[in-house]
């Protein structure tokens, strides 16, 4: 533990010390510790590159349970969360999100051979099958909004895969990259993943993107970070060079025009537009109400 939340001068301090402490959730391939005990992963790679550009050479990691990431950030246990956290309105109220770093699609991890023939949330609706979701992940909220009955909550992606592998759950919903990587890394686990999908609620694509999170008062750090981030995200080649080794492609590169602000405000229409390019259109007029609640149990 270090001193409390700070007065927003974290950037200065980190630059002085040359070190910044970030929390990660231990999720392959975003941010995790490899077998050599080194901190690595796609979001880590991006952050390290950015921090280096800001004169902070040393990135220290702290593994934290998903639920505790933002509470720990706000009480000053670490300076940033590098876990590819989805940018959601509720979260934006409590913490400051950088501009989108990577785009999310979801997938279902199912038993080998996909015995129930599942493809997305819609295929589960009404079947009574058990769906595992990770505590605090956006799929948890989506499953809830869709009214899926039999959900169980797991603490980590590993737990979710275990749940599917040993039959405690019929499917496990999480981001595509995470689960695909895990399925590849564990060929003997007896699991596979479905094709990626973007959940649709009330006809609106639940577009989501993840980024690094800072304390609200650390505006200087956030701005400096965003500036460097734009240089990577804006450059397809550089983006793929940085995160390619973790299985990410140009498909995960945030489209130009998509901002954290849109996602923070839950403005899915704007997001849909940005994602589909200038000409893209959506059919719903007032979707904000329903999307606000994507990630929470309340209304």
């Amino acid at each position, binding site marked *: 533990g270090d001193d409390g939340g700070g007065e927003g001068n974290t950037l200065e301090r980190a630059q002085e010390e040359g070190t910044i402490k970030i929390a990660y959730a231990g999720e392959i391939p975003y941010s995790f510790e490899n077998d050599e005990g080194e901190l690595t992963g796609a979001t880590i790679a991006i952050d390290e590159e950015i921090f280096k550009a800001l004169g902070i050479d040393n990135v220290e990691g702290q593994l934290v349970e998903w*639920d*505790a990431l933002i*509470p720990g950030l706000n009480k000053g246990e670490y300076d940033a969360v590098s876990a590819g956290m989805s940018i959601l309105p509720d979260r934006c109220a*409590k913490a400051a999100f950088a501009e989108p770093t990577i785009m999310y699609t979801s997938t279902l991890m199912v038993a080998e051979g996909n015995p129930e023939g599942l493809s997305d949330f819609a295929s589960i609706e009404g079947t009574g099958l058990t769906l595992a979701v990770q505590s605090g992940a956006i799929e948890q909220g989506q499953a809830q909004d869709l009214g899926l009955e039999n959900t169980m*909550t*797991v*603490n980590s992606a590993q737990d979710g895969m275990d749940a599917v592998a040993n039959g405690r759950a019929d499917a496990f919903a999480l981001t595509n990259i995470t689960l695909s990587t895990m399925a590849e890394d564990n060929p003997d686990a007896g699991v596979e993943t479905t094709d990626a999908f973007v959940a649709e609620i009330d006809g609106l694509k639940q577009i989501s993107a993840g980024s690094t999170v800072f304390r609200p008062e650390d505006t200087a750090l956030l701005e400096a970070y965003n500036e460097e981030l734009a240089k990577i995200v804006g450059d397809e080649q550089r983006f793929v060079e940085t995160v390619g080794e973790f299985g990410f492609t140009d498909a995960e590169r945030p489209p130009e025009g998509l901002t954290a602000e849109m996602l923070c405000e839950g403005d899915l229409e704007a997001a849909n537009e940005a994602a589909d390019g200038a000409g893209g259109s959506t059919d719903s007029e007032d979707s904000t109400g329903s999307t606000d609640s994507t990630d929470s149990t309340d209304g």
Partner: protein
Amino acid sequence: MWENELFFEAVPLLLEAFIKVTLVVTVLGTLIAVVLGLVWAIAVRELPPLLAAPLRFLVDFIRMTPLPVHLLVIYYAFNSLSAMTVGILVIGVHYSTYMAESYRAGIESIRSGQWEAATALSLPASRTWRAVILPQAIRNTLPSLGNWAIAMFKDTPFLIFISVPEMVTRAREFGGQHFTYVEAMTVAGVLFLLASYPTAVLMRKLEKKLAY
């Protein structure tokens, strides 16, 4: 800092977890511990040394090592068991090792005169246990068993390690969703106090009543 809204939102949620999970785990875990504890206590006394020694070691080993590790090991080793089942079994077995100690103390607290009187009357061993020793020992032991049950109740949050949705696991989840633990953990703490203090007072009453 403090949001009444969140507080009132957390109350019913955690109360539900409390009744549906925490209490269920405590009750079933206690049943397991009460029965297994007596089995350990008598077995260690009556088995031939060659069997009693390893059993005693096992019981001691379990008692002296942490519950969270036991939970994790059993949870991952037996995939077919649900987290709830694992939680109940492990916490029950863990506390049975404490209750075994209580039974043992209860049996030892019976004055040697009782054993000697039974010998002087030529009562056979089985009858001595059943009619003389156990009725007195269990009476002596009951308060202690009750207190271990309360201790177990307060240890149910350890099940957070295998995500059994008991009260504190739910409180953390709730906190994670609202990015603050203040209200939820307060509710959890208060519910614990509300439940355990009166029970402890009751146990003390029972203890006084049971004293010969």
